[in-house]
């Protein structure tokens, strides 16, 4: 199912997201129904251009004046999906890049958010582009979201210097899901992540790691090329494997500890794990944490 030709279309991505979410949501309780204004807030005067459906006809009968009945929209939280679109995300395993993998996870989680009537937005960042789909709760939001998501390409490095202020704009209760491979220069990403976190919001970092990238199970001597810097390194994978694995494990451990310290939720995602499983585990852990 995870094929580039499917992943690179909006419909395909939506389909995958739906299959994944419906797949693991089936059997669980349906989320509370969506509806504008179950909880009454206030009345205000009708102004031309207002939706007539929102007119309170009973109020009109009583008072003879047009009132619009306003209610608090029941959004739980704003979910902000942030995607590291640097070129290192182009690392490919079994025909799927990290970026595509992240897109599928984002699409699935966005689908879930929409089902739960959460607002959700998308921020993708690399050296050249920062694209934003502002969090909204609208019917078309999901399609707009997917459309933007499909267009994202992995280019350059992580954004250096200024220009990320837009992403630090925190309003109300929000949840930030940041998908990255944590490959950066001079701790750019860590600085960014640490700035994302505020006392009110919840930040979850999905660290995407390839299986071979983690285990270094290439047999023989290879030339390894850095996707971002194009630096080439010749190495014997068989000899280095043990040290490499230790280094990666240490790095993961360190990253996790660093984030734990900052109350950031860290999720290590290995690419060959099934996405459904990864999402289910993630949601399960979140449920436990939130209690």
């Amino acid at each position: 199912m995870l094929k580039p030709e499917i992943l690179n279309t909006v419909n395909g991505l939506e389909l995958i997201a739906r299959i994944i979410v419906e797949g693991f949501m089936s059997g669980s309780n349906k989320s509370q129904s969506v509806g504008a204004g179950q909880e009454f807030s206030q009345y205000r005067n009708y102004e031309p251009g207002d939706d007539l459906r929102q007119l309170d006809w009973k109020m009109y009968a009583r008072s003879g004046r047009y009132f619009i009945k306003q209610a608090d929209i029941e959004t739980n939280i704003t979910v902000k999906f942030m995607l590291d679109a640097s070129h290192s995300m182009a690392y490919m395993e079994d025909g799927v890049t990290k970026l595509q993998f992240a897109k599928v996870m984002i699409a699935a989680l966005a689908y879930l958010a929409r089902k739960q009537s959460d607002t959700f937005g998308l921020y993708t960042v690399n050296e050249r582009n920062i694209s934003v789909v502002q969090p909204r709760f609208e019917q078309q939001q999901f399609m707009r979201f997917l459309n933007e998501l499909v267009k994202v390409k992995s280019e350059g490095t992580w954004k250096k210097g200024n220009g990320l202020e837009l992403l630090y704009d925190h309003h109300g209760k929000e949840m930030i899901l940041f998908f990255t491979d944590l490959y950066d220069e001079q701790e750019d990403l860590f600085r960014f992540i640490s700035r994302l976190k505020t006392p009110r919001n919840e930040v979850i970092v999905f660290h995407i790691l390839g299986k071979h990238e983690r285990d270094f199970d290439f047999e023989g001597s290879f030339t390894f090329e850095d996707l971002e810097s194009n630096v080439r390194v010749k190495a014997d994978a068989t000899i280095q494997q043990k040290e490499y694995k230790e280094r990666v494990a240490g790095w993961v451990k360190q990253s996790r500890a660093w984030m734990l310290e900052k109350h950031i939720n860290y999720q290590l995602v290995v690419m060959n794990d099934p996405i459904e499983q990864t999402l289910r585990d993630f949601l399960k852990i979140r449920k436990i944490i939130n209690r």
Partner: protein
Amino acid sequence: MSFLNPIWLWGLTGLLLPVAIHLLSRKEGNVIRLGSVRHVVDSTSASFSSIRLNEIWLLLVRCLLLLFIIFFLSGLYFSFESRDDKKWLVVEKGLERDNDFMPLIDSLRDQGYELRHLYAGFPLVDDGSELNGSINYWLLAQTLQAEAVAQAVVLSNNYLRNFSGQRVSLPDNVQWIAKNPTQQEFAMAAIDMGNVIWKRTGSSNALKTHFSTKVSDNGQTAVPADTLLITLVSDNEYEYDKEIMLAALQVIQQNAPFIFVISDVSVSDYNPVRKADWVIWLSDRKPEVRDLPIIAYNNTEITNDRIVFEQVMPTYWRLNARLNEGIALNSHLVIRLSEILLPVGKFSESVEVNDRRVLPEQAAWSVTGQVSERKATSIPGNQNVYWMVLIFFTLIVERLLALKRNQ
């Protein structure tokens, strides 16, 4: 371990090729693109030696492969027969006491050679077993090759009479030493002819055997001569033929150690029950005897007048021509008649025993004989399969290793 085509061993210089390639190759191998190489340590500088060491295995396998191919082409083969250190000294009967060979025999026995007879089964000389009957050198050489003997030295007379069958080449493990025979003089017979002693002697050397006959009157031990009863039956028409025949018989008698008793009878007087060793029938009438050896004139059909004496049955000879001096001379009447009348093989036994003619060394053994041909084709032929299997497996190992090492 031997090579059939050692010229191919020059191919071993080709081993330099993979070595050079492995030394000079700076091939990067496959490129794998990683998100970041921050965790990968560059081994070109830090552990270059270890990388080279690892590829040495590949180099070794490649050299091995080349080596096997060269061995295969050069026809390397191993003799797997379990030839332990058995060493035989095989001597022909009689030569174990030969003065010329005694020093050689003694020194070889000191070196651990077993002394055996050149005879079927190669019996030990010390066993003292009876050796009767003739031997065949070529057959024995082949048998000797089949024996699990590391080295065999054969001392032989190389008598011509003992070479028979198809010529073979001398096996690798056999050293064949021939004795140069001395001249042999031998008496074949001494026959008492009544008034004189008829004496036949032979003389044989490496090149030839010849015989001579002496008639002497000195009184030495001699056996009495055999008597041959010949009945000459003729009629008047064959008077002249009879005269010729009688003359011929007389000549034979003078030169052969037999006493002829010739009864000259006419056809009408002939009594069929009369005892005779031979009947010579010179008449147009059909011979009346059948159970006696007979030479009869052919009065019915002329089959082949070029052959004066024609054998129709084992004891029935036909005379195809009327006899006169011309016929007698041209058809070697006396010799033919003596061949027919005189018993054959009387002296042949003593001749055979005393025959000293030898087959020359260069003619005795085939240079490109059947045995060596068989060796050249059959033994490596079997091992070719092993070489091919070995090459095939090495190739597979090399490919697998190269695939694994990404070279």
